[in-house]
């Protein structure tokens, strides 16, 4: 009886989470010009629109440029931060860790306004560099969390063993610490890219018309004219995100297998 209730409850929770996503997807294949059910006939015209219409094509390219830029920047910074936070002798380590994770909890609107003011001051408003920096700020916490978890899984004795076998600190890092942390770095990078991909609020504040990303374009297109292109774009984003999530999960499994001892 309890078991049956658990299953029903579980199914309901999953349905609650996933139904809104499923509701929009079939509309990507509609032949109608309206984003509504029922679907008169199926066609791929909105996907065609997505890759041929300048605003959409440009926004996809922008998303990739900004996404890759933000991923590289946040992965480097986040990995360095996680390495620094690992030092037990670091004063105020707890406070610093909280600071690094702050962008996760600060309201995006607050961060967006602050970013805009700062980037204008720096002369980086409405530039790719500006948007990449803004996105990277948002992505860093994901990298810090992911890399920290990977580093925490490394037995300090392994690094000590490397030292005692004649490896100077830089070699220990290059041959032992970094290779063992790589799965964490990569899954952090995947999270960072996914975060940048679906970021709207901060982009609204810091991006100019030339840096309009796919998510941002979807947002404005919903307000201006509700065309099923939005659904096609949504499908693209969801499939992309799912692929990334699968990649991250795969990496985590491999990491577990590689470091687990019987």
């Amino acid at each position, binding site marked *: 009886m309890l078991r049956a209730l658990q299953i029903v409850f579980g199914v309901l929770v999953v349905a609650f989470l996933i139904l809104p996503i499923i509701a929009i997807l079939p509309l990507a294949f509609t032949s109608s010009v309206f984003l509504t059910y029922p679907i008169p006939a199926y066609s791929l015209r909105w996907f065609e629109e997505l890759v041929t219409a300048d605003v959409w094509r440009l926004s996809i390219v922008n998303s990739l440029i900004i996404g890759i830029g933000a991923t590289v920047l946040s992965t480097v910074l986040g990995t360095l931060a996680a390495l620094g936070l690992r030092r037990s002798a670091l004063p105020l380590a707890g406070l610093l860790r909280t600071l690094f994770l702050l962008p996760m909890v600060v309201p995006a609107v607050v961060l967006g306004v602050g970013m805009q003011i700062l980037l204008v001051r720096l002369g980086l408003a409405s530039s790719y560099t500006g948007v990449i920096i803004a996105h990277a700020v948002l992505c860093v916490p994901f990298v810090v969390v992911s890399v920290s978890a990977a580093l925490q899984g490394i037995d300090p004795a392994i690094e000590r063993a490397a030292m005692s076998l004649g490896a100077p600190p830089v070699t220990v890092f290059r041959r032992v610490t970094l290779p063992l942390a790589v799965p964490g770095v990569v899954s952090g990078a995947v999270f960072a890219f996914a975060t940048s991909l679906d970021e709207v609020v901060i982009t609204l504040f810091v991006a100019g018309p030339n840096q309009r990303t796919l998510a941002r374009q979807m947002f404005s297109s919903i307000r201006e004219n509700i065309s099923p292109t939005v659904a096609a774009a949504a499908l693209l984003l969801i499939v992309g995100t799912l692929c990334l999530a699968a990649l991250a999960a795969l990496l985590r499994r491999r990491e577990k297998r590689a470091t687990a001892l*019987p």
Partner: protein
Amino acid sequence: MGAFIAFKNVTKKFGALTVVDNLDLEIAKGEFVSLLGPSGSGKTTLLMMLAGFERPTSGEIFLDGKPITHLPPHRRQMGMVFQNYALFPHMTVAENVAFPLEMQRVPRAEIVRRVERALDMVRLGALKDRKPSQLSGGQQQRVALTRALVFEPDVILMDEPLGALDKQLREHMQLEIRDLHRRLGLTIVFVTHDQSEALTMSDRIAVFNAGKIEQIDTPQMVYDRPRTRFVAEFIGETNLVAGKVVDAGGERAVVRVGDAALSVCGNVQPGRDVSLSLRPERIRLGSTPAAANALPVTVADCIYHGDHMRLVLKSGSLELVARAERLAGDWPVGTEAVASFDPQDCTVLAS
């Protein structure tokens, strides 16, 4: 032969806690020394200081006459074997063993040759392309040992390397390590809390207690002639008997225990209160006195141990534990008998 490894007045404090307390220790080249003690006695910290992972708060450490107190671990030429093996999980067995040779910039071809020879020596040649996670605990242990030996370091340090193995495998590895030590003439510093392991393998045992060495001696001396109560109780089982010295001269003394006067070994002053240590297997039980010391006793309990029996004997207020071999017959509870033991088996402890 002078000291190869020397600790001089070494103290290590973690905050207010003194873990190693003004300690001196000398180890000769080719010697197998066990650091034995309960957890928290400072033995592991001492090993970590020798490996270079911890700095002494004060004092100096010497290797072959040269101070190494401030030398970083990677320049100390010491192979270390850790409790949980600490193999590199992302490298194969062969890559693990090759690592120290690569650090010494040994030519590639020679690395391959030496790794193969070393792995064959411990019968792991067939597993060289496996990852550590695909090996059993005993195999991982042998890889860790090989990795620490392959670059022919001056000293091998072992931090409870056999703790995670089951009893049979542990005993097998003890003999294997002892054999390697003899064959290769290695200098080994071995940390353990297992007294039988220390007794089996070592040339000398340093018994640690509260940051100090209570006694450093050959296994036989540590067992047969414990200097302190702590050593007597920590190594093996013993009967501790309190008494007063009534007569003494040279290496002999007479100690009054209850109504009985026992002849004992040891240089003590008459009139002092002392503790005696008497190992259970040194007590002979019979119907008549059979040694210089003989006490009439009653068997109060008899515990079956398979290969031997443990007997609890009562003589007045004195209670002794004795070990009776199965061949010596049965000793039912209530039996009256005589417990005999030699003076040299009664060791006077510094109280």
